[in-house]
């Protein structure tokens, strides 16, 4: 089938690593600019640590850049700079709130807590190391397809890890943390990556059955009852996460991811409707049964009914920020509970205003767009689905957390990717970016004339049905 190889979307092969380097320099300039700006406004001088901060973030970004240059030369030029700028801005904001919290503690005559920013920089370094490991070890993402069921099992184990007594801990009402060697981790963040690989591998094999079998009802293609199994399992697991770990955010993320991939691989809107109804039913059940879900909804419908509520103070901060913001270092984001983690978008809205938050959301959108573009350009179905899943995981997280903070939907505790304080989430996000870049390297690389591998992969996927 030699003719088939002409049917791949036309992409002019260019490595564009030079462009990436320039964008990285701008990204680092923005991050260092934020740090200096905060020093100037809060402490009235350029902070002495600026040099270390700039050298640290610059070095990490350059290491990642050179790894791409040598191991994935055709990777997308935009994703890495976007990740670096978000990470840098996040560290700067965490540092700024550290300063604010220290000032508050001093005014009240208490000793300030240890600053969180250095910890976040350490985690960034760990994240970049994992990025390197993924880029250097995984030379071809198609290898991951062999690990479909291993990844599925690993994902499930990671999901239930926090439920093991003695290992899991209850923090802020959600049991999604484990404590190991004095440090706490959120295994769900890595479960996300494993489950995307599992869903993609599973759907590559099953999508034909899911697409073709079924009957038409009210203008909708409905699947056969026996094909409903996987979606019911995904639904039950995500409800289980909600019930036993009290975590609205990850429950929504896992089920949403599965539903999206199911829809993308089968093109049947019927799945979305079934999934939407299942989710609505589950959510209503949770609202009726669980106190914390009920409270979250209450806080969303009427944020100002609770004195000093998290959502309310975040909304006040955003309103005070207005269009152009107070300016970095001139707001009071430290007054909002979890201003460094869950509510970091509201801290940015307060100090950078609507203008700044739109820029940040656009940067997320760009990462997601590049991820979906990678999926379009990718030549094998497994790679397409993995790239779509990873990009959608960013999209869902940003939508859920920004929607929650701005009062569009009930607030649930999902980490703002790359920005929020929290090591596991940051490290997992760097791994996701590395995987996306690995797939995009494959997608953008000039096709060898015969393209034997990609054709075989297609034929294999067709035969497997």
């Amino acid at each position, binding site marked *: *089938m030699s003719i088939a190889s002409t049917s*791949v979307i036309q992409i002019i092969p260019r490595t564009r690593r030079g462009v990436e380097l320039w964008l990285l320099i*701008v990204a680092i300039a923005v991050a260092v600019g934020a740090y200096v700006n905060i020093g100037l406004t809060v402490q009235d001088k350029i902070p002495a640590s600026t040099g270390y901060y700039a050298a640290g973030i610059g070095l990490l970004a350059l290491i990642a850049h050179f790894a791409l240059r040598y191991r994935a030369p055709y990777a997308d030029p935009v994703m890495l700079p976007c990740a670096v700028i978000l990470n840098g801005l996040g560290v700067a904001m965490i540092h700024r709130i550290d300063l604010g919290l220290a000032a508050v503690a001093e005014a009240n005559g208490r000793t300030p807590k240890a600053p969180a920013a250095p910890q976040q920089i350490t985690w960034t370094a760990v994240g970049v190391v994992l990025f390197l490991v993924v880029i250097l070890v995984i030379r071809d993402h198609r290898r991951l397809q062999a690990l479909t069921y291993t990844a599925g099992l690993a994902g499930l184990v990671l999901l239930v890890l926090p439920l093991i007594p003695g290992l899991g801990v209850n923090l802020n009402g959600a049991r999604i943390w484990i404590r190991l060697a004095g440090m706490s981790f959120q295994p769900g963040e890595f479960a996300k990556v494993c489950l995307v690989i599992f869903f993609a591998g599973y759907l590559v094999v099953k999508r034909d059955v899911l697409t073709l079998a079924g009957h038409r009802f009210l203008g909708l293609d409905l699947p056969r009852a026996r094909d409903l199994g996987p979606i019911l399992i995904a639904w039950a697991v995500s409800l289980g996460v909600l019930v036993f770990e009290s975590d609205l955010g990850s429950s929504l993320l896992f089920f949403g991811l599965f539903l999206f991939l199911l829809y993308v691989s089968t093109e049947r809107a019927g799945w979305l409707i079934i999934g939407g109804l299942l989710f609505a039913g589950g959510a209503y059940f949770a609202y009726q049964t669980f106190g914390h879900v009920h409270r979250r909804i209450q806080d969303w419908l009427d944020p100002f009914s609770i004195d000093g509520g998290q959502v309310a103070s975040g909304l006040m901060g955003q309103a005070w920020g207005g269009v152009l913001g107070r300016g970095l270092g001139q707001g009071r984001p430290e007054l909002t509970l979890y201003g460094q983690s869950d509510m970091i978008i509201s801290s940015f809205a307060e100090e950078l205003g609507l203008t700044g938050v739109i820029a940040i959301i656009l940067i997320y959108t760009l990462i997601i767009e590049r991820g979906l573009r990678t999926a379009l350009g990718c030549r094998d179905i497994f790679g397409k689905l993995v790239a779509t899943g990873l990009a959608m995981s960013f999209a869902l997280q940003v939508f859920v957390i920004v929607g929650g903070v701005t009062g569009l939907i009930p607030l649930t505790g999902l980490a703002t990717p790359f920005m929020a304080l929290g090591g596991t989430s940051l490290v997992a996000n760097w791994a996701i970016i590395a995987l996306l870049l690995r797939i995009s390297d494959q997608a953008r690389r000039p096709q060898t004339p015969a393209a034997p591998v990609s054709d075989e992969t297609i034929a294999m996927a067709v035969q497997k049905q």
Partner: protein
Amino acid sequence: MSELTLTLIKLGFLALLWMFVLAVLSVIRSDLFGAKIDSRTAASLAPNNSRTPKAAKPVKKRKGLPGSVTIADGPQAGVGATLVEEPVIIGRGSDCQIRLDDDYSSTRHSRLFLSEGQWWVEDLGSTNGTYLDGQRVTRPVPAEIGGSIRIGRTTLNIAK
């Protein structure tokens, strides 16, 4: 520090942040407005376009297994696939063996497959339907040499 300096710093930082966003957008604008095709790619596309549709003249129905399916008209004329053992999927998706550039076809539109010593045409739940010799394909129907499949605005000929 004076109010004016603080305001200038604030606006300067926002401008820097937006500069990054605009720089990224300018890098990926080829996605939004289409990429320029360089001479090398254009040259490789040209022969396909200028080929005259030979398959257009009607072929009598004959016994034997079909050996190929080819687009008969339009800019994609001549594109096709050989029918060996594997099924051939036709549609707009990039994973199809015959990828149509036709807005009226679905991503995975129809399928040709070998079963019981015969090639069959099957519609994969497409929006606009598949037609074999003018008849809408509702269940798998046998594909014979000389038959023509219409998908959206594209006609494909089944040949030996």
